[in-house]
């Protein structure tokens, strides 16, 4: 999820060979619903603050990381551990 346009996201998916979709929130609608706007984030206006949610099969948030310093992100290991904790059944 990012505020960049679809065309930009297509380039990223192709370049990085991503197996998951990148969703374009160009109007910042979802950012507002999720309260993740960083209004001073870029010279061109609001962008997302880095945030990660692990959501289970019922659509319930089971783990999240909303860093309070945008230079500090959760480690992939932490996210992976949260996903593994949901089980594979």
């Amino acid at each position, binding site marked *: *999820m*990012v*505020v*960049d346009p*679809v065309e*930009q*996201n*297509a380039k*990223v*998916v192709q370049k990085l060979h991503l197996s998951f*979709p*990148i*969703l*374009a*929130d160009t109007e910042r*609608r*979802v*950012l507002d*619903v*999720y*309260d*993740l706007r*960083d209004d001073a*984030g*870029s*010279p*061109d*206006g609001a*962008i*997302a*603050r*880095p*945030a*990660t*949610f*692990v*959501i*289970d*099969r*019922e*659509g*319930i*948030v*089971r*783990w*999240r990381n*909303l*860093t*309070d*310093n*945008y*230079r500090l992100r959760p480690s992939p290991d932490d*996210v992976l551990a949260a*996903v593994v904790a*949901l089980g594979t059944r």
Partner: protein
Amino acid sequence: MSTRAPRNWAAIGGFLCGLGGVVAYFALVLIHDPRLGWLIHTPVLNLLLVAAGLLLSVLGAIQAFQGKRGGKFSAPALAVLTFALSGFLGWHLFVASYHLPPAMRAPAVGAVAPDFELNDERGVPVRLSSFRGRNLVLLFYRGFW
């Protein structure tokens, strides 16, 4: 007594440079002109001004100690002030500005993630609830602005 030492321009200029760099930065932030956004994000001019200020004020203090220039007390005092000012700007730029306010309304652990529909990188609408039945990592990132 010897004649009065010449005025310590380096100390005065250094302090003014430092003060100017810091004040100009916060003026930029207050004006908040979108055309100047890049200058707030990468305040090269302000940092250069502050760096020049630091250099000059050190030079001024050294010259004062050597007795070449006046201001045996005021030159070091101005240098300390210049360092304090640039320290404040540095702290603001490189520590405080990374800080994000708490996201009070963000979905909490245990809550249902609010549903939405957005286009994927092919322009195809994707609905969050279409992932029901599968575990999911939803990640927001800052992008390539």
